[in-house]
Every structure is written in C-alpha cells, then in structure tokens.
C-alpha cells in the first residue's frame, strides 16, 4: 500500500507579461511506506513545485495527488521557516496537534543536540542549528510522510555531513516515508532507497534508480558509482 500517489498531468504558470510557462509535464510516481526517496534534477525544473503540490500549497495543476488521509504530512523547507518570535521548543510544540501539545520531546531534542537550546530564539542560532530545529519540528509530528526541500543547502560540507547522519538516525528511530529534493548527487546516493531523476522543464521522471545495496552496507565506491551516474545525467553537482 503506497503512502503517496502522484499522478499529475501538468502544471502551467502564467508569467506577469502574460506568457505561459509549462513547468511540469506528466509526473507519475508512488512512495511505499517507510521508504526514502530522493528527487534530483536540474535547477528550476519544477522539483519544488512538485513538493508544493504534495503539501497542498499549490492547487493549479491538472491531475491528482493522494496524500495520507490519516496521519500528518510534515515539511522541512529550504529555509528553516521557524517563527523568529517563538523559541525553538515553542516552534516545535506549535506544530503539534493540540492533543499532543505537551508530548515529551526530550529524546528528540537530545538526538538533535538541541537540548540546551530549547529556550533560544531562532535568530540566536546558526543556520545549521536552525535546520536541526526545523528537523525537530517535522519529526516531532510523527508524520506519515515527511517532505524535505534541499534541507542541507548552503551549509558547509562538514555541517551538512553531520546533519545527514542526524537525519538518517532520526529516520531510523522514527520510521516514516520520506521524500527529499536535493541537488547533491552524493547526498542522494547516501540517503535514498530510490532516486527519481527529473528532466528539463516541463519536467517528467526521466529515470528511476533503485539502490539495492542496503544503506548501512553501502561502501564509498557504491555511493560514488551512483553519484557518478547522476552526474552523467547532467545534474549540477
């Protein structure tokens, strides 16, 4: 039973000058429960637009998107999008439904190294820490589907690497279905069970790569091989 079914036939935007931009072509894919899927593709090909359709933030497309009927959908946006006037902990709790407002979060904050920073305001955090808080907010919800839009972009590589490890640890401890957009072929090769390669605009799924080697036993060579295959498909590093 799939958690998410996307069957979009197209998405067109009207530009300010009246011209039409055909952003997304026919898109068809499903996500199996507790799978980790990455979307890679050239800049501006409509990856973020696809995520917005799934999140219910874009309604102007033709076709259907079926999201989990019961069970929440969480998002980690490109920017952390934390409310600057609320503390880290308040930001996380506000995202919870009222019934779970007082849920214990100690373990989650510990896992993300945020235990001491719960009372801090987002402006007092570095970008890397703010991104951790955004991850905490998403995982605290215990969502049926988590959508991540380049969550580690514009971080230095060691920080991004640490956050990738944290994301994997969180996802293993709290299994859920994950869909992540990334520009980084190595990141996709490290994290995903399956990679959907999007083509140029109007985008379609031009290739699907199943990663058969389990994540834990992937060697550097395995990762490099998949990353190289993605680069050949003309995706920016």
């Amino acid at each position, binding site marked *: 039973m799939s958690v998410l079914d996307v069957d979009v036939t197209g998405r067109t935007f009207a530009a300010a000058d009246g011209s039409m931009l055909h952003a997304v072509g026919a898109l068809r894919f499903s996500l199996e429960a507790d799978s980790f899927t990455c979307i890679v593709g050239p800049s501006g090909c409509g990856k973020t637009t696809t995520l917005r359709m799934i999140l*219910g933030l874009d309604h102007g497309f033709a076709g259907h998107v079926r999201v989990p009927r019961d069970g929440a959908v969480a998002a980690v946006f490109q920017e952390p999008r934390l409310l600057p006037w609320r503390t880290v902990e308040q930001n996380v709790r506000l995202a919870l439904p009222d019934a779970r407002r007082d849920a214990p979060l100690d373990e989650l904050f510990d896992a993300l190294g945020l235990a001491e920073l719960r009372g801090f305001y987002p402006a007092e955090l570095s970008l890397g820490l703010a991104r951790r808080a955004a991850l905490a907010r998403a995982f605290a919800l215990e969502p049926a589907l988590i959508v991540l839009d380049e969550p580690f972009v514009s971080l230095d590589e060691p920080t991004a690497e640490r956050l990738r490890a944290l994301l994997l640890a969180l996802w293993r401890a709290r299994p859920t279905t994950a869909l992540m957009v990334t520009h980084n072929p190595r990141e996709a090769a490290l994290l995903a069970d399956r990679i959907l390669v999007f083509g140029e605009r109007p985008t379609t799924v031009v290739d699907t790569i199943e990663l058969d080697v389990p994540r834990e036993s992937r060697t550097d060579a395995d990762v490099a091989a998949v990353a190289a295959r993605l680069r050949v498909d003309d995706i920016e590093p």
Partner: protein
Amino acid sequence: MSGRAVPVGLSVLVLLALWAIVAVLIDDNSLPTPAAVGASLVTEWRSGELVFHLGATLARVVAAFAVAMAIGSAVGILLGTNVTVDRFVDPWLILLLNIPALVIIVLAYIWFGLNEAAAIGAVALNKIPNVVVTMREGARALDPAFDEMAKVYRFGPWKRLRHVVLPQLQPFFAASTRSGISLIWKIVLVVELLGRSNGVGFQIHLYFQLFDVATILAYTFAFVGVMLLVEYVVLQPLERRGNRWRPARA
C-alpha cells in the same frame, strides 16, 4: 543610568531657569513663573480637582484608544489581506482621513447628543483611519512563507492569528500606539472643551475664561506627566517584552 540622568536633569533645570528669568522680566499674569505654576498644581491637588479631572480625561483616553485600536486593527488587517474590500473601502478611508477632527466632534455631538458615547466615539473615529492605514501596510507585508508553514502544520485560525499573524504586525501596532496615544489625548481635550463638564479640557476652558494661565499650565504639565508615566511604565516595558526575540543591535 546616572550617566544619562545627569544631562536630562540639567536640560530640564536650564529650561526652568530660562522660563523663570523670562517670566520675571515680563512680570505679567500671561506668563507665570514656574513657582506660581507649582503653587497652582498644589492647590488643585489639595482640593482634589486635579485628580478628579485627570482621571476623567485619562478614562476617556483609554476608552477611545481601545476602541480605535480594536476597530482600526481589524479593518486594517481585512483591507491588507483582501484586495477587493480594500478597493471598495479606500475612498471612504481617504475621506475620513481628511475630515478635520473638529468637524467630526461637532457632528457627533449634534447627531448623538452631548454624551460620553458621542465624545469617545468622536475621538476614536479621528484615530481609526490612521490605525487602519498603518495596520493595512502591516498586513500587506505578512510573509507568505510563514503562512505556508502554518498551513502544512495545520495551524487553526486562532493559533495562526496569535503565533503567526499578530507577531508580524507587532511593529505596526507599536507604531500606531505611539502616534495614537498622543494624538488621542489632544483630541480628548477638544471634546471636553466643547461638550463635557469634567476633564482637563473642561478645566482649561474654565481657567481660560478666568485668564488663569498658571492653572492652565498646571493642568497641562500634570497630564503630560501622566503620559510620560504611561510611556515609561506601560508602553516601553511592553515593547521590550514584544521585541525580546530580536537580536540585539550594536
């Protein structure tokens, strides 16, 4: 603290000294000395008149302020988020912005009688368009990124208003509070002068007829003192609390 207190105290002392010198040189009832104003202040305080009339004016300021901020904010947010309603209401707003305070007050008294509701309503109506314009700008500046976050995380309308919308409007609210409270107390005085039988405005009218400048100034300074107290004891601490999430500026 003491480093700042000294120049401020000095500045006030110099002003008082200048005033005293000019008053002594002119030697006329039209400009009493600071001491004479102080004496009037004490007399009015002892008789209980000062407290009574200050209280009446302050109550009207608070009532008119609350009405103006509540209605002005609600209308401003509506106009800032709904283009159709904004286009429709905008001409009314421009009209209201440009009607002189005095005309609104006189018409309110003629149409609704010389009563408290007409007085407070007239003051509030003078302030509402300014609040609407400021809050409309605030609502136009709302960040859609936060709105999307609230939508994804299924914030209800109340949660959204309290944690997403109002904090973004806080600087605009603070701006209209600041400009509003001083404007309102000045208009309250006119309302009292024209149609009330108590309040600072009424007393100033009375002592104008008696040509008692010392008491007029005593009432003026007393109320300015009250407003300073409101500024330092209520407004500034509230604003600091509202802004504590902002990174400190160098």
